């Protein structure tokens, strides 16, 4: 069965005011298929995070265009872009970025509140998302009371709670030890395998990159290598809970 492109970038360029001479993204074109797990690698400053921001509609390209599920982001207003992020794109950050003053369950439930779900539905989906990432019994805790790995799982639960088809992960294991990092990678891989969530993951870690079906290597704002590799065997949810 042929899969369609869910993320498309065509001749995208981006420069920042502080470095007008050097483009952060230079005429970059690529596409990501639905259900694909793409690892984005490259040295610092190569444009990985900027690319992620453009895909999420957080930033706009100076030239070229970005399409998500066939929709050109240039045609969307701020409200529509927010709606797209809320329903279609989940975001996972290197430093977790949980709201420190909110409890675990509130961190996961507030995007659902934004969707306008009823209270019971919010509670159900929150519990389900936390269960999917293996966080049970910590719902009333604050982020500062959790380990790094637990915080990242909560962040993933927040990202998937609204049922997005795309998950953007910006160095999700960068702040974690190798063992915890593996757990998170397994979790992402499981989401990709079992639920078909398209994942674009920025990483510096070669081992982490092997979790993807495809690795894009960037340098000076350009994709210099596009490698498709056989994926490692899928990891079951039971395995994740046991780690």
């Amino acid at each position, binding site marked *: 069965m042929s899969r369609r492109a869910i993320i498309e970038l065509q001749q995208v360029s981006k420069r920042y005011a502080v470095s007008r001479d050097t483009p952060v993204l230079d005429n970059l074109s690529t596409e990501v298929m639905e259900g694909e797990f793409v690892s984005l690698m490259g040295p610092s400053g190569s444009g990985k*995070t*900027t690319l992620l*921001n453009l895909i*999420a509609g*957080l*930033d706009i390209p100076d030239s070229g265009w970005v399409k998500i599920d066939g929709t050109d982001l240039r045609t969307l207003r*701020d*409200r529509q872009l*927010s*709606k*797209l*992020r*809320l*329903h279609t*794109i989940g*975001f996972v*950050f290197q430093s977790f*970025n949980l*709201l*420190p*003053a*909110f409890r675990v369950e*509130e961190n996961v439930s*507030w*995007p659902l*509140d*934004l969707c*306008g779900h009823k*209270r019971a539905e919010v509670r159900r989906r929150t519990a389900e998302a936390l269960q999917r990432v293996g966080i049970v019994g910590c719902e009333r805790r*604050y982020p*500062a*009371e959790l380990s790094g790995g637990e915080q990242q799982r909560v962040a993933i639960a*927040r*990202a998937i709670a*609204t049922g997005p088809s795309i998950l953007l992960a910006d160095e999700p294991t960068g702040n974690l030890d190798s063992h915890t990092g593996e757990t998170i990678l397994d979790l992402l891989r499981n989401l990709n395998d079992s639920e078909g969530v398209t994942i674009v993951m920025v990483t510096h870690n070669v081992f982490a990159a092997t979790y993807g079906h495809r690795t894009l290597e960037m340098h000076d704002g350009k994709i210099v290598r596009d490698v498709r590799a056989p994926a490692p065997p899928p990891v079951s949810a039971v395995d994740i809970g046991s780690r």
Partner: protein
Amino acid sequence: MIRALSFKMAYRHVRAGFGRMALSVVAVALGVALVVAFQLMNAAVLQSFLDSVDAMAGRAQLSVSAGEGLTFSEELVRTVAAVPGVKLAVPLVRSVAFPDDGSGEMLTVQGVDLTNEAAVRVYHDADHASEVIDDMVTFLNAPDAIVVGRELAERRGLKKGSKLPLVTPSGVRDFTIQGLLDAQGLARTLRGRLVVMDLYAAERAFTADAQINQIDVVLADGHDVETAKVEIAKLLPPALKVEEPALRRELVGKTVAGFQMLLSAFSLLAILAGVVICYSRLSAVFEARTWEAGLLRAVGMSRARVFFELLKESLLLGAMGTFIGAGVGSLIARYALPLVADATAIALKLPAVSAETTPTRSAIVLGIVVGLLAALGAALAPALRLARSEPVDALSLRGRETLHRASGYAWLLRLAPLPLTAAMIVWQQHWRTPVIGHFTTLLMMVATCTMATPLLRTAARSVTWLVQVIFGAPSATGIRRLAAQPRRAGLSVAALGVGLGTVFLFGLLGWSFERTLAARLTGQLRSDLVITSALNGEGGRAASLDDRLLAELRGLPGVNAVAALQQRLVRSSYGMVTATAYDSRLFRDQRLFQWRLGQESLPDALARVASGDALMVSSSFAYEHGVGPGNTIELTAPNGNLALPVVAIAVDVPINSLVISRERYRALWNDTMVWEIHIAADSQNSVEQVENTISHQLGARLRLRIQSTGDLIDYYASLAHQAFGILYLSEALIFLLVLVAIGDALASSVVEGTRQFGVMRAVGLTRAGLFGIILSEGAVIGLLGLILAAAAGLALGIFWVEIQFPAILGWKLDLHFPTSFALGAAALTLLLCLVGSLLPALRAARLSVPDALRDE
């Protein structure tokens, strides 16, 4: 040791983060400004009143008088002069007059025997009266000859030979200036508003032939003042008193001190509001530096050192605030001094004085001490909290509010001020000690602060879901964000609660004062017209009129009933007290007056008071002295002593006073003057006609003010409003500061939450949603602050109106809630909270999400 005392590190931190700490400086500055201003103004006003007493007394060691303005025969001078040790007995006529130009400028008239140079030298520095007056013989032969202060003459462009028409109690009379007094002694204190005349001319113009109202006594060198006082007292008729001007000085000092204590208490409330705002700001600033404190601890700095470094920062901020506050306070004192001087004169019925401020060391030192202590006090808890944080936690939390769970002990501490406050209120109700009342006020403020966080939590628990249903998820997220930072948000609510609570207290107190006066007069006055002098005498009160005017009024067409009242200080078994003497008709004729008597009053009370056999007391008098029906009050009058039983409490008499019959008063005190005349017209239709007739036939000659009862009540209410003028100024300053504090707290919250907002936007929150979060935070802080302020203001207001105000000034007030003011202030606060959150909300909504996500 030297390093420990160094302010280098503290200075660097203050310099680097001054923008975030500036509000603390402003809060301290405002508190210090009000403390310094009130201190300077109080000192200046008190000094002016004392100077006035000194100047009035001149070099006399004793003074004989019958009380405020009352007259007696000059025959008594010889009796006093014959007492062993008396070197000189100086007969005097003292009165007030007004230039007949509508300016209302009150002049003090001093009638002294100008042929007696020794007598003149008692008050004026000139060796001979002839130095001031060119032709003494002509002067003495001219009953219209006067000497005035040079300052007055220069202000009005008058010189020797100029005519000066003056309004006297018996009408307008022309006087001729025949001398000018330089700015020395009494002329200096009164800013030239002094008219000196020969004794006999003064008697004819202001009292009656051979009637004087004071004898000043100079003793022979080395003669004991107390012995002479006793000897003179033995020879005086009962109502006349002999007293040392020094004691009068003490009395004025004591009287003024009560009112000034009230003003000082208000300035201390302002500093308290400043401390809460400062505490709130420093808590946020120090909390944001938790990471830095962790780093310092990690590299080896001790807890104590971190704590003291933070205190040093607060000391620097306090020093800046104090420096600014002292300057601003001096400026406020300079420009608001006439307001306070007038307010004091009106409140205490003292003659208005001109006061000048000179920065005094004690006021500045007090300002410095209060400012530094306020800054230190505000910083103590946040600094201790930060110094005690564990380095690992501090490094990982990076400025986020430290998680803590309230223990039972913490709840106990939070609740402790409530029963303590209740106990203090009960204590104060019984003992009425002003200082205890101030302490109780402080405790009530502390209780208000401790209630802020529980109120926030309760509100968040109760209404978040409702807000989400009505206003949507972003607004509910705003409330959750506030509830999740209970200390920080609670402090903003507390600052608003205490600050606005103080504003509500001032409003409630001022309004209760005004309305008590108006309500009691409204309940009492039934006459169609009220006539007073158009000129104001001491304390802004209308000057007295001769009671011969009553007969003239009775003869006018359309006038049905005429009766008058007079008010004077008299000597009683409770010391000097105010007596209000009403014509007996005022007790009987309900077209003129309506009396509301206390429950325990005797059934024939009004008839007995009207006949002069008994008296009533006002509710304030009853409250202050614990007097009621069944008690007897002894009165000392020039024509005999009398003991009158108290038969009723007159509820609607607005001041602290005895109520007696004027017929009895006139006979015993020789006072033929009246203060207010009440008139009932033949019919309602003829009121205007009667007013016109009085105005045309008597008004111009006697400079009368003819008003309806409603106008009179409005006039008194405006005087009360004027007396509280300085309070309204403080109120406005505190209100402004509180609103700036809320705007600042919201702006800081946005700056500190930049990264969080970036995350929210990345997850799918719209700009409008983020805008709504900040706006709802502002609205919730405003709303909860208002609830707390309303509760605190009401509790404080009731305490002050019912207990503390009577304890300080002896005036019993009724509680009147300033609904329009409170609603207006509440609406303005909410509006300004929303406006104050607009800028932070706009900033948040415009954040570049990638930049926000990179924010540390």
